[in-house]
């Protein structure tokens, strides 16, 4: 490996789950400030900057706000998976020598601004005129949760997956949230609680859906060579990959085959690893079905076997593949686009900073984001040993 091997040298969160004292920009800024503090770098060291294009502020306007003199700028809008996509881009730019230090930041005051605890409103309403392809969905009252619910219904039809199996995913996230003092919800729940909670869009119940919170994050990536002067042990980016199979749910080619089924094998091949090498997964849990289809797609279980796998106990701390060790979007924090939180938790696990939620002897962590309507999955495989 050359000295341009990409490494993460800082990974930080802003205040969550409720942060009425922070605007969207302040979440970006607080997380970036904390990340800079971790690695001892300054704004003037950053020459690559990437952020989602779906916030109120763009990467361009945020770069101005931070006074980042960038050689590389990136901002795309594939929903919650954006940050694994941006890491994918940052790594390529670092390897190519286009920049030396890349920062990815995120901020959202979704809870404070929306005041709602559940994002189940439709996008389009009476009076709207629809000029995009959404005009083939909007008249039918499609909702975000409804899109995922249709995938879950089809998965149940094809493979016999049950609501109880999906509920296990929410229960495990809540168990892990109990170990996270910042998590939005920490009281234990049971499978019966999940399937007994109000039905939002059959077959998904209220507790199959992620929380709505405030929150932001920042990750700083550089080369192994540059990281030698910095404090702390670097986390290696072993592989990144992403796939987008559609945007609108009605264009999803197969409702039971998530895009991770394409991106996952590509990332494992690049890393020279297999699913059984992974010590912990941080998976985008917008809904329980998102995790279930992702587990199958990434190859942690066979196609259609996500239900029994979720119910096997493998995903809880102490199991073979502890998942969402901070409590995930289902219980801890989901401020709209959770992908960067996944990377931060993966890095914290690899640095051994997770206290009671620490996965013992954690060497390989996988973070997989999901965006839109099971539309795009992008993932990163990280390790704390030199590849």
């Amino acid at each position: 490996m050359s000295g341009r091997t990409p490494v993460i040298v800082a990974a930080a969160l802003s205040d969550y789950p409720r942060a009425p004292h922070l605007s969207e920009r302040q979440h970006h800024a607080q997380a970036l400030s904390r990340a800079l503090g971790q690695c001892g770098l300054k704004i003037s060291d950053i020459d690559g900057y990437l952020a989602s294009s779906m916030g109120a502020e763009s990467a361009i306007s945020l770069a101005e706000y931070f006074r980042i003199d960038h050689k590389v700028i990136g901002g795309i809008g594939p929903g919650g998976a954006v940050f694994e996509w941006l890491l994918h881009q940052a790594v390529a730019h670092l390897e190519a020598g286009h920049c030396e230090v890349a920062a990815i930041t995120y901020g959202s005051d979704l809870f404070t601004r929306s005041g709602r605890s559940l994002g189940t409103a439709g996008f389009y309403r009476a009076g709207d005129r629809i000029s995009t392809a959404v005009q083939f969905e909007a008249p039918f009252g499609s909702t975000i949760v409804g899109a995922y619910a249709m995938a879950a219904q089809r998965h149940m039809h094809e493979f016999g997956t049950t609501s109880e199996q999906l509920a296990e995913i929410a229960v495990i996230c809540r168990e892990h949230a109990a170990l996270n003092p910042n998590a939005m919800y920490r009281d234990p729940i049971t499978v019966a609680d999940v399937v007994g909670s109000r039905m939002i869009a059959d077959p998904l119940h209220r507790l199959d859906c992620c929380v709505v919170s405030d929150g932001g994050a920042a990750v700083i990536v550089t080369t192994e060579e540059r990281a030698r002067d910095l404090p702390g042990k670097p986390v290696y980016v072993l592989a990144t990959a992403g796939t987008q199979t559609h945007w609108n749910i009605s264009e999803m080619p197969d409702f039971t085959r998530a895009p991770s089924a394409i991106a996952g094998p590509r990332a494992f091949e690049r890393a020279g690893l297999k699913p059984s090498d992974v010590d912990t997964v941080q998976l985008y849990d917008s809904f329980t079905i998102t995790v279930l289809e992702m587990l199958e797609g990434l190859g942690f279980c066979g196609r259609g076997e996500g239900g029994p796998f979720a119910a096997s106990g493998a995903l809880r701390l102490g199991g073979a593949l502890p998942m969402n060790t901070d409590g995930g979007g289902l219980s801890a924090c989901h401020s709209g686009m959770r992908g960067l939180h996944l990377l931060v938790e993966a890095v914290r696990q690899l640095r051994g900073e997770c206290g009671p939620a620490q996965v013992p002897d954690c060497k390989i962590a996988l973070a997989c984001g999901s965006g839109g309507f099971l539309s795009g999955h992008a993932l990163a495989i990280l390790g704390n040993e030199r590849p």
Partner: protein
Amino acid sequence: MTRQLDAPADIGRLPKAEIDGEWRAFWEGTARGELLIQRCPACGRRQFYPRALCVACGAEPEMVPACGRGTLYTYSIIRQNLVPPFADMVPYALAMVDLEEGVRMMTNVIGCTIEDLKIGMPLRVEMRQADEGYWIPYWRPASDG
């Protein structure tokens, strides 16, 4: 529950499509009671929603009538939607229908109860008028005559 699923009572308040460009012919078709999809004269591929080019070969597709029969691919009963006119429509069946021609589209299944819904059930299209020149393709069980 035996309530019949139906289009929203306030159908005139549905979000409206901008009827323009490559999508104009589709909406003009529904207004005539015709469900149109696309077929590529060069490679034969069928596609929906309509596009200005064939996603397989890049040639210009033509609009062709679909037979109006299909099967239920998947669905969800939407029990919470906070915005009008859907807030008053809940619970309703958001659904995907596989057309006999091999393309898939979103719809609401109407004309049956929630308990009647079964993945794979045969459906047929039924147009309902929402506004002047704006008709919505709903689907209902084909077995109800």
